[in-house]
């Protein structure tokens, strides 16, 4: 290894190195090597040196994105006032003329809709959690429940893009790409940033690969989508007729040919190519081992629920996320679709909760029993919340809810965050009463847990230094243990 590294180093040079800085600052930190004046120009590279910026609390993130926007009012933010005033109009003094989506802007009435679900109080913080989430309630003492997240976006695409990239529009790097860029990978067989998709039966909103894009960063920071089919990673599997030994044989020949080419041209890219083929070969062994659930003990299957053996389900993805994370994947991004209940919310949300409740809680329990929860930050939440008033026809026990960006609930666990309940919304659950957490603040806080100063993790592109938090955001200290 040492030798390989040094030999390769001889083919490289400082300028080339600098020109490829987008490969990742974290990646530079390999080995106790002396890096002299790479950063002497006093530019951002100086600032970037010495990452992480301070001792991290968390090393890895698993983000359980609830795509489509779960209703905070039916899950975490209990408002008896809405039940009292069921069917009455949302007072104008509360709405304050705030903009609505095109789906309800033309409604003449905004009848309040109290939840039909029962709530209980759980854990030391006496967190209110709906009967729909019994398993989540069981791990309440590990959760840091933020009831006052807010965003400016009121439609799915921009809101989701905002959560993932720090901007509502544009082609910016995703959070996982930023972390891969800033901190590099903890392993040499797997990508630093993996993406897992699943779907519920509720009204769905699509996801798009832009959400795990590297943006203007080098494409090695792009999220690698794992699929539930036979090829977990694009073209990972050799064709049926080629086994490992046979593949090795071909790779050796290819390496011989490429080495000859290198000797003739001296282009360091040729050597890099040789190494990439070796990495591909290692992935071919490492990935199937991780995606193979057959060796999981009965206790684990029981913990996550039987769905975890069905590839492509949320439960299976949670278990896979744990395994990837355990093996050093920096950022695992899950998306579960189906939360967009504009109508028949009580019916739809039951199914969605059934999909995610047990496995989300199991992930926390599982990480904890492995001693990994302290260094793994788990995040659960959607792109915005849902309105306290009904969209469409309101009956005694049925309603729909439109998009609501002004306050909603997201929870975090592990990774050095402080368990408890943070922030209060008003009695209508429409506005924030205390302790708002904007998406930029949320990002700043997450980066902080990873040992990164959100103002210093920058990349210069087209004349501007970009950050995940754009030009805003502050670390919410009260969320940190």
């Amino acid at each position, binding site marked *: 290894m040492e030798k390989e*590294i040094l030999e390769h*180093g001889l083919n490289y*040079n*400082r*300028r080339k190195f600098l*020109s490829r800085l987008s*490969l*990742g600052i974290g*990646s*530079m930190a*390999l080995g*106790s*090597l*002396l*890096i*002299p*004046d790479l950063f*002497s120009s006093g530019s*951002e590279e*100086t600032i970037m040196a*010495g990452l992480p910026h301070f001792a991290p609390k968390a090393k890895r993130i698993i983000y359980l994105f609830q795509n489509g926007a779960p209703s905070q009012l039916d899950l975490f933010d209990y408002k008896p006032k809405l039940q009292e005033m069921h069917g009455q109009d949302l007072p104008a003094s509360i709405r304050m003329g705030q*903009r609505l*989506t*095109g789906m309800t802007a033309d409604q003449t009435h905004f009848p309040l809709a109290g939840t039909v679900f029962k709530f209980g109080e759980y854990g030391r913080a006496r967190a209110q959690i709906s009967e729909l989430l019994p398993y989540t309630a069981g791990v309440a003492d590990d959760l840091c429940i933020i009831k006052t997240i807010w965003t400016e976006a009121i439609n*799915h695409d921009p809101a989701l893009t905002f959560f993932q990239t720090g901007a509502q529009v*544009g*082609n910016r790097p995703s959070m996982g790409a930023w972390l*891969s860029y800033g901190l*590099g*990978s903890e*392993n*040499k067989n*797997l990508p630093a940033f993996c993406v897992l998709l699943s779907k519920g039966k509720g009204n*769905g909103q*699509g996801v798009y*690969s832009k959400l795990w894009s590297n943006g203007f960063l*080098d494409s*090695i920071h792009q999220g690698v*989508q794992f699929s*539930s089919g036979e090829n977990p990673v*694009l*073209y*990972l599997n*050799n064709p049926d*007729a*080629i086994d490992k030994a046979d593949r090795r044989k*071909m790779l050796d*020949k290819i390496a011989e040919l490429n080495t000859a*080419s290198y000797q003739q041209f*001296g282009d360091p*890219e*040729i050597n890099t190519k040789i*190494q*990439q083929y070796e*990495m*591909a070969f290692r992935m071919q062994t490492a990935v199937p081992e991780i995606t193979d659930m057959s060796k999981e003990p009965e206790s684990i299957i029981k913990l996550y629920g039987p769905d975890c053996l069905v590839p*492509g389900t949320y439960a299976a993805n949670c278990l896979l996320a744990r395994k990837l994370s355990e093996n050093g994947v920096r950022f695992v991004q899950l998306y579960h679709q189906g939360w967009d209940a504009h109508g028949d919310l009580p019916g739809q949300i039951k199914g969605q909760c059934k999909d995610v409740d047990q496995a989300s809680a199991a992930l926390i329990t599982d990480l904890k029993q492995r001693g990994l929860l302290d260094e793994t930050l788990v995040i659960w939440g959607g792109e915005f919340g849902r309105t306290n008033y009904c969209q469409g026809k309101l009956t005694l026990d049925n309603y729909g809810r439109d998009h609501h960006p002004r306050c909603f609930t997201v929870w975090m666990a592990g990774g050095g965050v402080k368990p408890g309940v943070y922030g209060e919304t008003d009695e209508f659950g429409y506005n924030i009463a205390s302790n708002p957490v904007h998406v930029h603040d949320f990002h700043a806080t997450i980066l902080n847990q990873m040992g990164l100063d959100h*103002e210093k993790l920058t990349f210069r592109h*087209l*004349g501007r230094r970009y950050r995940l938090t754009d030009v805003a955001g502050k670390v919410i200290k009260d969320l940190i243990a």
Partner: protein
Amino acid sequence: MFNSDCFFRSRLLWIGAGFSALLLAATVGCNNKNGSAESMPDVVSYNFNIRPILSDKCFACHGPDANKRQAHLRLDIAESAYAPLTETKGAYAIVPGKPEQSELFKRISSQDPTYQMPTPESHLGLLNEHEVALFKKWIKQGAKYERHWAFIAPKKAPVPKVKDEKWPKNELDNFIMAKMEQKGLSPNEEADKERLLKRVSFDLTGLPPSIQMMDDFLNDKSPNAYEKVVDRLMQNTAYGEKMAQHWLDVARYSDSYGYQDDNIRSQWPWRDWVIHAFNENLPYDKFLTWQIAGDMLPDANKEQILATGFFRNHKYTEEGGVIPEEYRIEYILDKTKTYGKGIMGITIECAQCHDHKYDPFSQKDYYELFAFFNNTKEKGYEGDVSTSKPAKNPLMQITQEDRQKLLSFINYKDTNALTVSVMGELDTARKTYILKRGVYDAPSVEVQPTAVAAIMKYDTTKFQRNRLGLAEWTIDRNNPLTARVFVNQMWQEVFGRGLVKTTGDFGMQGELPSHPELLDWLAIDFMEHGWDIKRLMKQMVMSATYRQSTKTTDQKQGIDPENVYLSHGPRNRLTAEFVRDMVLSSSGLLVRTIGGPSVKPYQPKGLWEAASSGRGVLATYQQDHGDALYRRGMYTFIKLTVPPPSMIVFDASNRDQCEVKRLKTNTPLQALIMLNDPTVLEASRVLAQKLEAEPGSATDKINKAFRLIICRKATDAEMKILQSYYDDQLQEFKQKKLDAQKTLNVGEFHKNDRLEQNSLASLMKTISAIYNMEEAITKS
């Protein structure tokens, strides 16, 4: 913070490229602290030495943005920099001739954190010793300001004289050689004929040369043999396809509407027009005029109107519940950005919410430019996916009659009418306002359509205040950017790196040109010769600079590791689409139909389905069959939310926005594609089948496959490696250790069972190995 012990903590990284990056560090050593290799110029230039530092370190707080300006100090304008400081009485930021009395110099050279600039809180970092010394000398020499180079019209400098008069083949080479001589570099010999042919063939057509072409060129001993090849390649219709590829990135072309439901659209007739325009060699000034304002030309014909599809290629939302005006504004922002970045090479979009922080573009300038595009008839929202149509208003009908006459380049077999989104003006002009913070519902002051004065004055006696006026302003001979930006993009296409490296930013934060006189010479020459694109391309590929071999030496690497000064030929990986084209073409699978609706070749199962909302006709991937499986990469269907994965892995644009430059990465996912993508495996089988049916030995067949894929004859050493692999495989197949039938069972192209299956499979595997050579996807 990084310090002198130069010690980094240990961490692993995933990718080999990262390793290599790191490693170089081991060789650099701890010397050379402040980049002392950089020499102090005799005369310090504001534009080339000082402004880049000011822009990077100072303008954020002391630049053009009035709202963010600190201490009322502005350093981008001489009179303000020379004026008495308002917050430090009796002091001046700059006293020309006297660095010691200049507050600016005192602060940038100070060690006191409470006094020094930039401040520690800015996170901008201090200036290094060399930079401080530059300031000192510049102030001493009178602190003379100059206008930004890119905003002054280019001047045609005399072609420089060079010592080695024999080397240059045209004027370009004199400029390149003069710089090389200054830097102590000398050019390489000409590349061998085979490699040169491969390089120029990909650069002009995106396809490898045929064996016939290789033989002809090798046998042609006439002095103009190379020129004949160049001319022939440019006459090939594949030239238009190759040239269009870059423009599709600029124009963010796609086959779907983007955003979450992401339904199908039909903008491809516009794409067919781009190919046609390049093949017809439509001059660049017309090419732009038609795209910017073809619909407004007197007696505009349908071809000119179709060209305006350029501004309709961006995403359109079909999400229920959006606020139409929010998205209508979003579409105008996109148009403005595309015009700025793709055509003007400026980052005008930075002035959407506030005055530009570095360039002299105010927020008012931004909305004045925006106003040109704000008068279209289009709506912010035409309904959700359930009512989706293949084009949005305003649209143009393309009838069968059109396709038989003026628009005969549109490849459409169906008799149904086609529609395509184009530009169209409102009868009564829509008012445009500056939007506070760039927000759609916060209009403030009304503005009139005007192009950015800092680039070139918008003379309303000459230019109307509409898109047609903007088009004329854009192609005006005195516009300092249009020609420079385009020749730079083409230079990047040919040499892999622009003369201005930041292709999309010619502003103050952009990189300075490596060869400013050459860039200007090329730009003016281009305009003087009628904006003739084919002529420009020919100039570049005919140069001695281009024809050099790519070999590099330690000496060259030491002086110029990035090959900025071009002392050897460009060695670049094929771009994503051409990787596919190479595979299909060399195997004989390629179907050379031009244009038409995009196609859906092999793709791993479930990718569209997993990400889809389930709505719209693109919720599931319906793979095509037959010829549609073997079309060029540029015709692969681009669904914006899930762009073709093999393309993205090879750094293709995701077409979300205007892009003028692609990244060039080298990753394990690329290796997996070349090893396991059924496209490559099928090509290996089909080529093996073809060769196996021909007479000759296995060695002959391997040799021929090698020539088809690598585009040169294999060396003895290479043949030895491949032959030994073939022999080994043949043994394994014969001994049934490997399964020939299974190996050959890939792809839908017909199989030839009459051939001997063991040798066929062995040849297929050998060909697959050749496809995985680094050189296969490299122009060397």
